[in-house]
């Protein structure tokens, strides 16, 4: 008997929690949605996507700013570059990556370009 009451209480609590989460997600204004990155595996290396919510805002198949089609040589280099873009966006700054940014991140670049 009391186990049925406990069971129904647990169900109600669980559902209230779920209800709250749904409300929270829905009330979040889209412009405050958090930026996220996704690393993508490419033929000769790696690139990244920047998303806001489910919306893709930047697709970077090549190292930004560099001439030619130079992909990131490792997942780590793509990730730290994407992280810098995210931090710029979250500070409300431009997502532009400058040559000095890439140098600070020690991004590998092909010789001869």
């Amino acid at each position, binding site marked *: *008997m009391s186990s049925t009451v406990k069971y129904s209480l647990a169900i109600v609590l669980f559902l209230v929690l779920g209800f709250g989460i749904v409300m929270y997600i829905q009330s979040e204004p889209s412009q405050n949605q958090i930026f996220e990155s996704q690393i993508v595996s490419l033929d000769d290396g790696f690139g990244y996507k920047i998303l806001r919510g489910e919306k893709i805002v930047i697709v970077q198949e090549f190292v930004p700013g560099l001439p030619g089609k130079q992909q990131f040589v490792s997942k780590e280099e793509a990730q730290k570059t994407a992280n810098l873009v995210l931090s710029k966006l979250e500070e409300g700054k431009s997502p532009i990556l400058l040559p000095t940014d890439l140098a600070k991140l020690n991004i590998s670049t092909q010789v001869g370009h």
Partner: protein
Amino acid sequence: MNKRKSYVYKITGLALLAMVVTSCSSDDDDDLGNWVDKSVFDGSPRSSVSGFTIGNTGYMGVGYDGDDYLASFWAYDIEGDYWSQKADFPGAARNAAVGFEIDGTGYIGSGYDGVDELTDFYSYDTASNTWTEIASLPTARRSAVGFGINGYGYVGTGYDGENDRKDFYKYDPATDSWTELVGFGGNKRRSATTFTIDGLVYLGTGVSNGVYLDDFWVFDPATESWTSKLDLDEEDDYAIARSNAVGFTLNGYGYIATGELGGATNTVWEYDPASDEWEQKTSFEGATRQDAIAFSNGSRVFIGMGRTGTLYLDDLDEFFPLDEYDDED
């Protein structure tokens, strides 16, 4: 026992129903409008950018963000509605440059680096994502007009640092050389606008010595001759004259939108080449702006960037002129 069970089921059912109802709460669908807010170029406001559209990609770069002259260069994917940062523009960071396309290659050159008006010019190869310096424009200028047509590039008007200009130069990619093109009968000016309909280039607007010009011209590249069209103040209700506008073509009509007329404006005028007449369209719905850019692939057009006063803008809107006809009917 049965009663208790049914009680549990009722609560569970009600709660589930509540969840379903909330998660289905309607996202208000925007009314089909003339201007639809597209990709936000997040946090990267810039004005007086330069660019070109090749296929389904709009390219845009350089410009000024209120603090710095910029060299970064971006591609907007019209289908996917996202941006990519491409190879940096190799010349000095600048604004008020011209950009145009010749046979699938992009060109950006001239402009202003904060100190001097510039002559240097570069071509951009979309396939290899590389820039190549080409022959410099014979005379430095900023706020010129530039367009590519029939395998040649044309750059003219603008401001050289002391005077507004009316001269034009023709660029031949085959010989990598510029030659002066005589015959433009309009006044000297800066910050004019062009659009191209059926192989003819229309030029109008712009400003010189504080006067907004209202002459309007068409250039036939086959004969390389300019012909005067009806003035932009031909009808009493015309309010087309302005500077720093964007020009674009859609479905056989030309458009002049946004710009500056004693302050930023967001009005839009449509030109019918058959009748040589203008009609006002629904104003740009984004913030009023000048020094914006338009990307057009012939069937869709996007306007974005620019500034209003000292506030620099970073949004992009798509223009649907056909929806306007319904609104006005």
